[in-house]
């Protein structure tokens, strides 16, 4: 039972040895889950951006992001987007950088920078929302 709750892979697929031998499935799945989260949040942000930010200047942008719904969507978009970006960049690097001793440190740098961006973005959204 615990096996079942851990993964969405079918037992038959596992028994037949289908799919990734290592941790590829979780990576693949995470890329898709974040992609699904990005569809509604991206459209919401795009529409809000065009309606409030482009014409509204500083006060328009603040007013828009101080609504709880907008702040939630912005935070979801930020975090899902950066996680999706990490997944995608990792796949691209694995395709084009065969040398592991170059790829792994580079991947570490990418993940570190993206983590920093996630923190900066989250704190910014929080500061805008609470108006401090």
């Amino acid at each position, binding site marked *: 039972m615990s096996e079942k709750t851990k993964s969405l892979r079918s037992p038959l697929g596992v028994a037949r040895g289908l799919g990734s031998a290592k941790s590829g499935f979780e990576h693949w799945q995470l890329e*898709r889950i974040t*992609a*699904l989260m*990005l*569809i509604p949040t*991206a*459209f919401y942000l*795009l529409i809000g951006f*065009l309606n409030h930010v*482009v*014409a509204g*200047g*500083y006060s328009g*942008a*603040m007013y828009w*992001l101080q609504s709880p719904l907008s702040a939630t969507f*912005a935070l979801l978009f*930020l975090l899902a*987007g*950066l996680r999706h*970006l990490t997944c*995608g*960049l990792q796949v*691209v690097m694995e395709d084009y950088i065969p040398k592991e001793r170059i790829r792994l440190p580079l991947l570490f740098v990418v993940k570190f920078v*993206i983590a920093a*961006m996630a923190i*900066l*973005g989250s*704190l*910014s*959204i929080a*500061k*805008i929302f609470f108006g401090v």
Partner: protein
Amino acid sequence: MPAPTKMKARPRSPHLQIYKPQLSSVLSITHRVSGVGLTLGAVVFVAWLAALAGGAESYATFLSYAQSFLGQIILFGFSFAFLYHLCCGIRHLLWDAGYFLEIKDVYMTGKVMVPTVLVLLLIVWLKAYGVSL
């Protein structure tokens, strides 16, 4: 016992430039390139949030960069990559779910997606320049 023969260099599959570009391959590589390009888009988005959180003054500085010629070119690229990757990503998710996998459907969804992206891009930039729609 014979000496081990030296391994001959194995043939390698030819890379992108040798193939005739087709709608399917061009849309696929554009998806990847736009995704990588959105790294810069993510930096712009976070910079925008940080500038806004910093107050009216830092936001004005951000806007002066964004409204410069180079800033507008970057934002145009960002908006294209954003809309393209969003629309093409929906197409990829539909494939993952098992739909539109026949070659004729691949072309059909591609031919629906490209004009959709261009129309959305036009709407975004008309709105950005204050045209009421």
